[in-house]
């Protein structure tokens, strides 16, 4: 269970933050402003929150949970998703909250969140900006997803991948925007999507699907060169 605390100087004057700890997950949530950059190197797909059933958008980093990303940060064009950057930080009303149990927080290592004048340090100021972008982005993404849902453009993609090692991977629970369905929408809906910028976002998701093949190719190469993987 996370341990949420509202961020304030009195409680957290000794608190320090480090870069996000732990391995990058195989599927990282992204927001609309990140779609284009993410789609250059990763499949951008939708998945469902297991607790609510709501769709969210993410970039596929690897093809199997628990495996490291198949591309390095450089190969991903330096993409560092806001959801990762903001890990451990939350917005609660007008204030910032933190999950005190997130391993990026410590009183020993990292940068202090507050200076002696009780003001946010540079690292916290950057985090405030990132959090603002992230939460604005979440809202925009939700609205985009609602639009796609109403037009019935979201469709499941069940993938079966075979590797030279003999391994077969079945990937379920991922969704994309259906190009055939997109072509079938009426003119008024198409114009609405175009004006709102959603048409481009929809195509970005749909056309990033072939990136799955590239990731599979990379994984196959890694399996062959390092069978212990």
């Amino acid at each position, binding site marked *: 269970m996370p341990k949420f605390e509202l961020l304030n100087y009195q409680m957290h004057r000794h608190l320090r933050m480090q870069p996000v700890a732990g391995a990058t997950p195989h599927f990282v949530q992204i927001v609309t402003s990140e779609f284009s950059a993410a789609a250059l190197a990763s499949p951008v797909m939708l998945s*469902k929150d*297991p607790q609510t059933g709501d*769709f969210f958008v993410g970039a596929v980093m690897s093809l199997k949970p628990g495996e490291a990303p198949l591309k390095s940060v450089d190969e991903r064009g330096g993409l560092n998703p806001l959801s990762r950057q903001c890990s451990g930080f939350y917005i609660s009303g007008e204030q910032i909250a933190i999950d005190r149990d997130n391993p990026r927080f410590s009183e020993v290592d990292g940068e202090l969140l507050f200076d002696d004048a009780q003001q946010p340090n540079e690292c916290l100021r950057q985090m405030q900006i990132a959090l603002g972008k992230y939460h604005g982005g979440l809202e925009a993404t939700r609205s985009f997803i609602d639009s796609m*849902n109403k037009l019935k453009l*979201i469709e499941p993609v069940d993938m079966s991948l075979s590797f030279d090692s003999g391994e077969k991977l079945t990937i379920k629970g991922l969704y994309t925007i259906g190009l055939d369905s997109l072509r079938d929408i009426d003119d008024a809906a198409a114009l609405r999507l175009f004006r709102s910028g959603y048409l481009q976002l929809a195509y970005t998701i749909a056309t990033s699907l072939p990136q799955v093949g590239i990731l599979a190719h990379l994984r196959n190469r890694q399996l062959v060169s390092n069978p212990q993987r």
Partner: protein
Amino acid sequence: MRPIKKIVIVGGGTAGWLTAAIIAAKHRSRIPAGFSVTLVESPNVPTIGVGEGTWPTLRGTLARIGVSETEFFRECDAAFKQGARFAKWTTGTADDAYFHPLMLPQNFSQLNLVPHWLASNDEKSFCDSVCAQNQVCEQGLAPKTIATAEFDAVINYAYHLNAGKFAAFLQKHCCEKLDVKHVLADVRRVELADDGDIRCLHTEQAGVIDGDLFVDCTGFKALLIGEALGVPFRDCSDVLFCDTALAVQVPYDNEASPIPCQTISTAQSAGWIWDIGLQSRRGIGHVYSSRHISDENAQKELIAYLNMDSRNLSFRKIPIRSGYRETFWKRNCVAVGLAAGFLEPLEASAIVLIELSAKLIAEQMPACREVMDFLASRFNATTSYRWGRIIDFLKLHYVLTKRTDTPFWRDNLLPETIPQRLQDLLLLWRYQSPWFHDEFDRVEEVFPAASYQYVLYGMDFRTEVEPGSLAGTAKLAERSLRENAAMIDKLRTHLPRHRDLINKIVDRGMQVV
């Protein structure tokens, strides 16, 4: 050629509206060319809610007619159903119970696990050895998660529903989305043509309504098929003795009370009690044979089952007559629902029979009057076969009993009350168990071989096994039993509580994909 374009359905209960929806959804694209579905409903006749249990077929039916499963849950007080628990049917003792799930046994299409289970003498029940669903229900878990799309399942499921609300839900969908014409009128007279077809209906409020094909959904009254066309009713109370139901609705203790995810059927001295959990209440009823117990004693047994203060409860007595029409489709009239027949709701066969009949009518819709009689005879053959098999299957529950404590149970074992086909099968099953590649693979079949397995071996039926014959499939059987155990563990951690999921569906909705 006399084209069939005007379909007139008489009666507005579950049967009428479900039939209207199935036909209208299938033929919607023909509406511009003059095809129409009209439902004539009396403003004065209350509908009987036939059963609140359904089959998994209803998922496909609802999806095909284009309703939202989320809206269905919100408007029909619906809950999930994963099977039926039969208590006190075999010996009548307190710990006597077995489960008839909706999932097939592990790897059912590849091997028959029955002989392997019998040979193992395992203390674990047949159902628990080969299928995860009983354990899922025992834990109070749902058959899917909030992230599972509408009508998709993690494990197979049907619904429990409020039949009155369901009819209203279907009516709204039919009228708003499927262009079904709704006429509120009492039918005063059915006018026949010289050739014996129904020409038109004379109504009190809406004048004359003519049609090419009439569907009789007027319930027990059977206004068209029975009264107008004189098709006799084939009584089967010599096989299935129950002729009365006493129904009651019971509130939950509180809003958070668990909702059982299975129908609970508990045998009594001269019948059995159904117990069905909806979102807001439990529907409970005693189905009994009035030849074997008085109404007063039947009510006493029901009250004892309820185990609560029953003074404020309202009991509704419903006379029932088991049997079906000798012909379901005569001339240009076809009967669906109670007008076609009725069987005690032991295996929730009422709504599935409506679905099957309506689907057959919709798919085989005669293009013209000239081909109707041929299609009608095919429909009659299929539907009669289905009713016969359901009667066999219901009777199976009674003939496997070891109870001899009352005349009701003893009478059920009299050979003259057991259909010959069932007697033949019972003899066969002493030497070979029912499975995939046999008797029950016909398209017309209603209950799959798996259902027979669950009931037979749930009720301690024994089939002889020659141990040497199992060697070829022993490894696969072992693996299947292992896979089932692993599946139970996985589902236990993965699936949400039944009421929690329903609350989420009502609050947030499910995704359509």
